[in-house]
């Protein structure tokens, strides 16, 4: 007779957590992109003259010709909804109080994944022009969260 019966009083599992922390730096191009966002409230793109592309956020090398990129441009804070999804649950599985719209906002030949705001799930559509709403300058810390969300572009700015 072998030991096959679990003790009903036994703890079923041992719970623990691994203390893993990380510190990520944005790299040469990323550093410059986020500095510009923090200090000037603008998005920087990098231009590949050979491929006639403008990468947003800025990158150090062209992903098409692998050339080093030297030319930087301010691409403003306006883009358009390339695709979006509506979230009803949080990352931990709990339901959200109100649905949240996450979109890929196309800017030139690149774009940024971010939240949409000041727009309902019924109003949003693919191709919708949007503009970034930034934190006030003193509160910006050089993070993607310096952008609060993108909102529908008001007609006079078009």
């Amino acid at each position, binding site marked *: *007779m*072998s*030991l*096959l*019966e*679990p*003790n009903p*009083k*036994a*703890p*079923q*599992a*041992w*719970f*623990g*957590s*691994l*203390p*893993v*922390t*990380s*510190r*990520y*730096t*944005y790299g*040469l191009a*990323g*550093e410059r992109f*986020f*500095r510009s966002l*923090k200090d000037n409230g603008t998005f920087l793109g990098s231009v590949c003259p050979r491929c006639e592309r403008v990468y947003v956020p800025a990158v150090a090398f062209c992903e098409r010709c692998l050339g080093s990129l030297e030319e930087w441009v301010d691409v403003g804070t306006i883009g358009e909804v390339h695709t979006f999804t509506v979230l009803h649950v949080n990352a931990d599985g709990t339901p959200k109080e109100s649905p949240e719209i996450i979109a890929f906002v196309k800017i030139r030949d690149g774009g940024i994944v971010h939240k949409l705001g000041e727009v309902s799930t019924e109003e949003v559509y693919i191709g919708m022009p949007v503009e970034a709403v930034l934190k006030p300058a003193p509160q910006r*810390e*050089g*993070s993607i969260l310096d952008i609060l969300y993108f909102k529908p572009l008001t007609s006079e700015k078009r």
Partner: protein
Amino acid sequence: MAKPNINLPGTSLSEEDFKAGNVLFRHDQLHGEYAWDTGIAIGAYLAALKEGKILGAYCPECRKTIVPPRIVCEWCFQPITEYVPLADTGTVNTFSICYVTWDVKRIKEPQIPAVIEIDGASPLHGILHLLGEVDPQKVHIGMRVRAVWKPPEQREGAITDILYFKPIEEG
């Protein structure tokens, strides 16, 4: 840290660069949470700890009593047939005096982890735990020790239900 005597491409960053804000960065913490299934034998071992007992198991093939218990003998691979309650006393088999914690913090009062051969288990069979209420200079291999338990209401079925082992006073 010693500086390398070759110039590598790239941007080297020091802790001062982060403190001074010379570089932007992002801190992150992974949610590395896990649940480890205790299984039949270790489950029984933890349940016994909650009741203030150290549980072993006996292999009739090898005539060995092992601790903590297992359902299969590690030597002959035969199923183990019975649990054996053991004493909460034992003998220090080996020990270390640590002035640094597991996450590399300096401590004044050393921690003394030790492998303790539990009385009732076969020779050289024991568990890893801490020693306490002892002068670090006086710890020695062969020292007789006894478990110091948490109060019963605070026990939760964990190896930490034993706080530490302390020397058994002579006589």
